[in-house]
């Protein structure tokens, strides 16, 4: 249902002066409660103002105005959740299993997390709820994150919470290992929790409230998981961790860790992890981070998305991407597409690239989506080419899915 228009909706237009050429914009408005394209809730029109884009028009101000490509995303059938999503960051994990025609989704509700699997077309198949049971007579602690870690010989589902880290088989059926957080030198005024999960070759790295990153050595099978190392590089709570196989090297990965003060650390994995680069913060939290071909993509509490060179730590691109804190970033590695989601209700897709001559990092805006009245808290691509993605929002009891047309 596409309505071609020659003029944009007044309320969505930018107040800047427009060039003589036809104003072009692609912004899709989505009502979260609806089931799909056929089922519209009454009284909430689905707005799709879509016109083809033309690049390279210069405005009166001499600034390059970049228009969106004609690519469009269509809202697909949502997957219902037992419990609504909590207002956390990175609150959606996706495990793609193309060989089995399945996709797993993981969402945190609060004291429980829901793991579910869906067939293509979003048909839900099985679901499971996980909790952290700490003892009799004590309420289950709040879960901060749930995330699948793909290792060379196995996939583990990791759950972080206040007080504990728990690791399960990938379908959540069996807990393989758990680790109690060490209170160490915590004052009572600090909340203790784990947050930030990533797989790095045969290690699983988990961040903590103290800034320490725990590195667990994972065997090819079985429960003999060992805490190998504790990385110190951060002084404030870890927010997110991202990894990527090191270019041209097998069995080595690069990893970037981010924290609540915006500090980013780039590491090289190994029996001992080495700190390669440290990018200073400026007091603004960095809730989400991604790594792709030596590019660090970081989303911040002030709505900015910044791209740094992982080797030098130099800032190459600064995007004023969102009006509220970024809550999630994801990457489609095959094409270098970056997905950013924020509490401002918007989700944006960007194309990352390197200038072949200068080696500078460049970015292009591809698409924007507005999830009406929803504080987005999780977003993931559902395939490595970035042609589909899924989104969760605070208090939304469904996973919204989008596919490109």
């Amino acid at each position, binding site marked *: 249902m596409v309505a071609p228009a020659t003029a944009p909706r007044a*309320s*969505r237009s*930018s107040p800047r002066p427009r060039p003589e050429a036809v104003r072009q*914009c692609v*912004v899709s408005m989505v009502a979260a409660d609806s089931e799909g394209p056929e089922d519209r809730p009454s*009284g909430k029109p689905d707005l799709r103002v879509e016109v083809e884009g033309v690049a390279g028009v210069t405005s009166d101000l001499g*600034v*390059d*105005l970049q*228009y969106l490509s004609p690519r469009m995303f269509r809202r697909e059938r949502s997957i*219902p959740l037992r419990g*609504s999503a*909590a*207002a*956390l960051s990175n609150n959606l994990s996706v495990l793609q299993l193309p060989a089995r025609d399945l996709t797993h989704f993981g969402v945190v*509700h*609060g*004291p*429980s997390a829901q793991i579910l699997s869906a067939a293509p077309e979003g048909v839900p198949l099985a679901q499971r709820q996980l909790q952290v049971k700490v003892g009799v007579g*004590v*309420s289950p602690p*709040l879960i901060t994150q749930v995330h699948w870690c793909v290792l060379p010989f196995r996939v583990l589902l990791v759950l972080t919470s206040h007080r504990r880290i728990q690791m399960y088989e990938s379908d959540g059926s069996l807990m393989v290992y758990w680790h109690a957080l060490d209170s160490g030198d915590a004052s*009572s*005024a*600090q*909340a203790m929790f784990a947050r930030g999960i990533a797989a790095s070759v045969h290690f699983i790295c988990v961040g903590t409230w103290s800034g320490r990153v725990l590195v667990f050595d994972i065997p090819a099978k079985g429960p003999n998981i060992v805490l190998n190392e504790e990385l110190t590089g951060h002084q404030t709570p870890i*927010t997110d961790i991202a990894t990527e196989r090191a270019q041209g090297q097998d069995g080595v990965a690069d990893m970037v860790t981010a924290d*609540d*003060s915006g500090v980013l650390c780039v590491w090289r994995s190994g029996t001992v992890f080495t700190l390669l680069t440290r990018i200073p913060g400026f*007091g*603004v*939290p960095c*809730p989400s981070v991604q790594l792709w071909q030596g590019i660090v993509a970081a989303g911040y*509490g*002030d*709505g*900015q998305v910044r791209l740094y060179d992982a080797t030098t730590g*130099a800032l190459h*691109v*600064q*995007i*004023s*991407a*969102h*009006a*509220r804190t970024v809550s999630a970033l994801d990457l489609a590695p095959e094409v270098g597409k970056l997905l950013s989601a924020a509490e*401002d*209700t*918007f989700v*944006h897709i960007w194309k990352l690239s390197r200038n072949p001559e200068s080696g*500078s990092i460049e*970015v292009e*805006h591809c698409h*924007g989506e*507005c999830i009406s*009245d929803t*504080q987005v808290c999780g977003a993931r691509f559902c395939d490595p080419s970035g042609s589909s993605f899924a989104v969760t929002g*605070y*208090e939304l*009891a469904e996973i919204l899915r989008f596919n490109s047309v």
Partner: protein
Amino acid sequence: MSVRTLPLLFLNLGGEMLYVLDQRLRAQNIPGDKARKVLNDIISTMFNRKFMEELFKPQELYSKKALRTVYDRLAHASIMRLNQASMDKLYDLMTMAFKYQVLLCPRPKDVLLVTFNHLDSIKGFIRDSPTILHLVDETFRQLIEIYGSLSAGEFQLIRQTLLIFFQDLHIRVSTFLKDKVQNSNGRFVLPVSGPVPWGTEVPGVIRMFNDKSEEVKKIEFNHGGDYVAAYKEGSFELYGDRVLKLGTNMYSVNRPVETHMSATSKNLASRTQENIAPNPLAKEELNFLARLMGGMEIKKTSGPEPGFRLNLFTTDEEEEHAALSRPEELSYEVINIQATQDQQRNEELARIMEEFEITEQPEITEQSASKGDDLLAMMDRL
């Protein structure tokens, strides 16, 4: 989550409670001196030093049930009485209002400005009582001291903690519906226009730099919203222009505020999460209540001061109807004291409650048994 959330939650909900009570006292034409006395009594109980000391200790947030008990007690800290239905409605209005304010705060740190707005208004209610004014200022200073130095990351954690507390509450409030800040499904409208938060840039610009950190290119993109730059930052001092309007009094005498009971079925499952295994939870909650209420000094009304009943509804019939028709899933459930194993804690709480005196009111509908049983019964009814 954050262990610094409770003071902000308590003070803001308390502020909203006072706004509603003030509006109802005027709407019900309660004589000025009585109305002032009610507000003074409640405010002086709220800001009592011992109580504030307990409140400000770093601690986890407890369940809505436990917190509700504290407000029940607070609302009855004067000669005013509220029936169950009115108390329920009051609590609904308080929670939805603060939830709205938290959700719409531009920066996580702005929740402090919302708190200051509430405190500024509270000071307005008691401007003729210097002793109580002093107590409020003490709390104000404590807030500035503790929260003034918290980082943006810590405020984001506080925000997340508050939003988890309010998760899945979708009670529709008539003022919000009329002002179009709430949709008919109970969810709040999140505008995509207006000023950006202080410290955030208007979205829509991409800046690229060379290896000498010089800006080499600037591109605009269509971000989809209609934002403008923030024009001023609110003041975090004892006195000052807060700039933010969230947390100021939205009620006026002529605007009756109604709530609509509508729990959509798909939210039922997530609401019942909290009611799993009530007994293990009750023990922690009772510890918390014993501490907090132990610090609450309820003024014993001297002499046969006649009390009165405040009605949050327009008529008594409406109130009765509301009590009967409140949906099951929205009832604030019982904290089952008798069932707890911890006898010692039981006794301590019972002792605290014996200290509270409630002047007998013939109008109190439910079981009006002996005084000591009143409060226990009240807690059991929650």
